[in-house]
Every structure is written in C-alpha cells, then in structure tokens.
C-alpha cells in the first residue's frame, strides 16, 4: 500500500461515522508546520489536561504514533504506514467524553495535509514554525512551501484561527507576510495570530512550542498558564500541575544536553533535526554550552535529495560560520562524494566521504581519543544512523 494513502479496508463503513464523531468534538485543533509539532501537541495536551479539559491528542512520534487521551498514552504499532486513521483504537476513545482534540498534521505532501483538514475541520491551527524541508513534495523553496500550507485553508467553510510563532526573524519575515496576505484576501476563512517569543529566550531551540501553546490557552480560556501553579477544576476530582515556562525550559535544556556513553564518547544526536535552519539553531545552542571542538557525521538518503542539497549548503557555510570548532566530518550514504566535492577547500580537508557502517568503530575511537563532541546530522532513519545511535546510546551514563 502506498504509504500516503489512508487505510481504507473492510472497515470502510466506519469512516462516515468516524468523521461525524470527530466532527462533534467541541474544540478541534490541528498543529502543523515543520519542526516541533509533536512537542507542541504534547505541551498543549498537558496544559488542557491541567485545566480539566478532557483532551484527545495524536502525535506521529519518533518511531511509533501515539494517541493520548486524558493522560493515557496509547502507542499504535501498525503494520502499514497509514498516516491518519486508526480504526481499532480511535473509535474506542471517541466513545468517551472529549472536550478537545489536538492532532499533529504531518508535513509530508500537500494532499496528506489537506486530508486531515477535511476530516477534522479545525477551528484552530497552530503553526510553531514553517521551515525548508520535504522540498521534494512540499515546495522548492520557503515561499512555495508556505503557499502549500496556506492551501490547507482554501476550502474551509468556517473561519480558522491560525497561530504562528516562528522565533527566527529571517524566516518569520518570509512566512508571515504570505499568511497575512491570504488572511486579508479571505477574511472569512482565516484570522492570523502572530505570537512573539521573548527576546531573552529566542536562543533556546523549540521555545516557540511552549509560547504558542500558552498564547492559545490565554486567548481562548483567559488563563495565563505561568500564573497557574496548581489547578483543581470545579466539579472535578482531577488535579495536577500544568507545565509552565520554567518547567518547559528545564525539559528543553535537558533534551539539548551533551550526552556521554559508557565508553566516554560525548555526543549530540541532531540527525532528527532535518531542516537546515533548525539544525543551525540547535548547533549554535550546543556550541554556546561548551568550548570543546566537535565532529560531524551525516547520512544522505537516496529519497531525500532535496535535503542532501540543503545540507550540502550548510556544510559549505560552516567554515565561515563556525570556523575551527569543526575538526572532522564523516559523510555517509548516497551522493556523499558529490557533497564532498562541493565543500569549501577547508571543509574538504577534514571531510571523509563514502563512510560506511564498518567505519563506526573507528569514528567513535577517534572522537574519544581527540576529546571531540560527535554531532549526528541530516537524516535519522537509515541503517547507518541506526547502528551509530545504538552504539552511542548503549549504556549511556
């Protein structure tokens, strides 16, 4: 089955009821964009649950899609790659009371994104950011990609509130005018809420995930989440702390810390940071936390040639932007020799194209011996990274 075709099998008769049921949930929210969608969904679910709202959420997850209903996390172990619908588990959850549904919209193709809009008919769309990734399917450059996101709202019959929270100014300057232009042309379809991130926190990658959610809660429920420490909703025995700014920053910094495994190899796994702007944002954050030199290792996938080209440019510019902090670069996968040939002379001198799985042991020995921090990059899902990350994470300290 084509991985982008939603699952329609002998339970197809349930689809109509599925749409009716999900369409009856009072508050329907889609989280879409490029980076941090799952995190934004999870934070919003946590905030809403803290406010006593029975919330159903779905995130794609790194390896397994997750459903979350009122604090119950249900992994979906699926045999096929159907993206949206799950006729075994979601209908069971829809039998329970639900005040709000929050679903991550995977930015894979314009079709898959629009399909979820048609199913859910959201009143709110939260976009933490839109950056350049999936260029093969979403658009050649940032402008084209944003227009494909805007197309999600063309067929809506009810007005959608769109929240946008990009902290990187150079990207915001491109994206926001396109969103605003559409909102001005079709005021009956969308209203744009531009969420500004405090300057003092812009350096933290992913900080927009928290601020866009807290803005959403404040504008829809009149509650400033940072002023809420402990909530016991009227008429409910449920209680608990909701996430606040300090807790989010603690978690974010914990996720961004440099790890060390039992062999004494220090590393940072950025292979899942698949767009160049986000990668540079995180890399700069990591470098600001240490003065030690780093080594990079990247894998290029044959089905992500657009991403290969983007990261070729990143690697070419690194010498100018970061300079002598980069000591070694290992390039693995498809077109690694091509990428190597397009690097600046300084980067070429320290880069090793055509790196293979059987070189992993020597890479780890080298970074340990030279006290380098190994940063993985470009693509996470491939056998080379599987093996490298398995070795890095084994017996992590």
């Amino acid at each position, binding site marked *: 089955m084509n991985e982008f075709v939603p699952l329609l099998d002998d339970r197809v008769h349930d689809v109509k009821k599925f749409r009716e049921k999900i369409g009856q949930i009072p508050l329907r929210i889609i989280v879409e964009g490029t980076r941090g969608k799952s995190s934004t969904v999870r934070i919003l679910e946590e905030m809403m649950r803290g406010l006593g709202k029975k919330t159903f959420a779905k995130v794609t997850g790194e390896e397994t899609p997750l459903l979350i209903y009122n604090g119950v996390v249900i992994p979906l172990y699926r045999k096929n790659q159907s993206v949206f619908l799950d006729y075994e588990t979601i209908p069971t959850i829809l039998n329970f009371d639900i005040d709000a549904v929050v679903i991550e919209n995977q930015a894979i193709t314009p079709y898959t994104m629009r399909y979820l809009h048609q199913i859910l008919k959201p009143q709110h769309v939260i976009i933490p950011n839109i950056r350049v990734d999936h260029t093969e399917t979403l658009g050649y450059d940032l402008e084209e990609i944003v227009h494909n996101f805007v197309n999600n709202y063309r067929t809506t019959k009810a007005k959608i509130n769109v929240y946008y929270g990009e902290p990187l100014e150079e990207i915001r300057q491109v994206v926001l005018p396109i969103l605003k232009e559409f909102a001005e042309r079709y005021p009956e379809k969308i209203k744009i809420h531009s969420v500004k991130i405090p300057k003092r926190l812009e350096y933290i990658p992913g900080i927009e995930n928290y601020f866009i959610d807290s803005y959403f809660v404040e504008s829809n429920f009149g509650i400033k989440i940072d002023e809420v420490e402990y909530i016991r909703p009227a008429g409910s025995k449920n209680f608990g702390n909701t996430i606040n700014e300090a807790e989010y920053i603690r*978690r974010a910094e914990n996720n961004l810390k440099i790890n060390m495994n039992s062999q004494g190899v220090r590393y940072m796994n950025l292979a899942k940071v698949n767009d160049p702007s986000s990668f540079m944002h995180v890399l700069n954050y990591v470098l600001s936390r240490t003065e030690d030199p780093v080594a990079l290792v990247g894998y290029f996938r044959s089905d992500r040639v657009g991403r290969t080209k983007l990261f070729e440019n990143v690697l070419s510019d690194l010498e100018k932007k970061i300079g002598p902090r980069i000591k070694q670069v290992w390039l693995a996968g498809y077109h690694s020799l091509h990428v190597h040939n397009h690097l600046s002379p300084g980067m070429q001198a320290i880069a090793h194209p055509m790196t293979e799985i059987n070189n992993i042991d020597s890479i780890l020995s080298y970074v340990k011996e030279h006290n380098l921090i190994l940063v993985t990059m470009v693509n996470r899902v491939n056998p080379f990274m599987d093996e490298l990350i398995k070795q890095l994470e084994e017996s992590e300290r």
Partner: protein
Amino acid sequence: MYLKKNELKKEEDKNLKNPFRILVVEDDPQISNLLALFIKKYGYELCGVAESGEDAIRLIETTSPDVVFIDYLLKGSMNGIDLAQWINKEFPIPFIYITAYSDDQIIERVIHTCPSALILKPFKGEEIRVAVEIIINRLSYKKQ
C-alpha cells in the same frame, strides 16, 4: 464500535459476568489500593498485587492474567522495563505502564518494550477504564 452511554453501561455489566483479569505490579500500597478500587468499580477482576518484578513473575505464571499494570519503579532487582521484557519473551500478554514520568526520553524508553498503554500519574478511574477498554477492543479485533 461506537457506543452510546447506555451501551457503555451494558458493556460494564457484561464485564461483571465475564470479568477481564488484571494483575497490578506496584510498590506503593496507596497506588495499588487505588487501582484495585477502580478495577472492581468497572467490573474487572483483580487477580493479584505484586510489589516486585520477581513476585509479579510468580503471579503471572500462577494466575494467567489478561493484562498487567506495571509501575516504572519497583521493589527488588527488576524495574518495570525488566518485567516488561520478561513478559514479551515468556508470557506474551498485554501490559500497561503506570508512571509519574512524562519526559519524552522516559516515554521513548518504555515504548521500546511495546506496552499497550502508559498511564501518567496522577490518574483517575476513567483513565484505567479507557486503557483496559482499548485492550479489550484490540483483542476482539484480533479474534475477528
């Protein structure tokens, strides 16, 4: 698949006649008592409570539960993940983690052991019912 409120009640009555059997592995008696209360309230059967992984293994082998609730931290030499790995290998039945940790890294780690669900503390009875009903539905799909 889609049940109305009165149909949900009928499902609970049906559970009373043919109860779904649940083993609780939890080292905090307050939490295990609370779980026992909810299990009975919704018409399921509590077939045992263990405080350690070692006790849980003995109870699984002797009582053959339909599902096991596992706390992430346990008494004894095994933690919740060790017990889950034993279940996957030796006695493949569904299990549900109960955890106070909601950090992504912990969730990723426990998901590698293929649980049917994770329930985050603090929880209410309805969350227990949701998790168990999902397992019952999945098992009925498998039978079909």
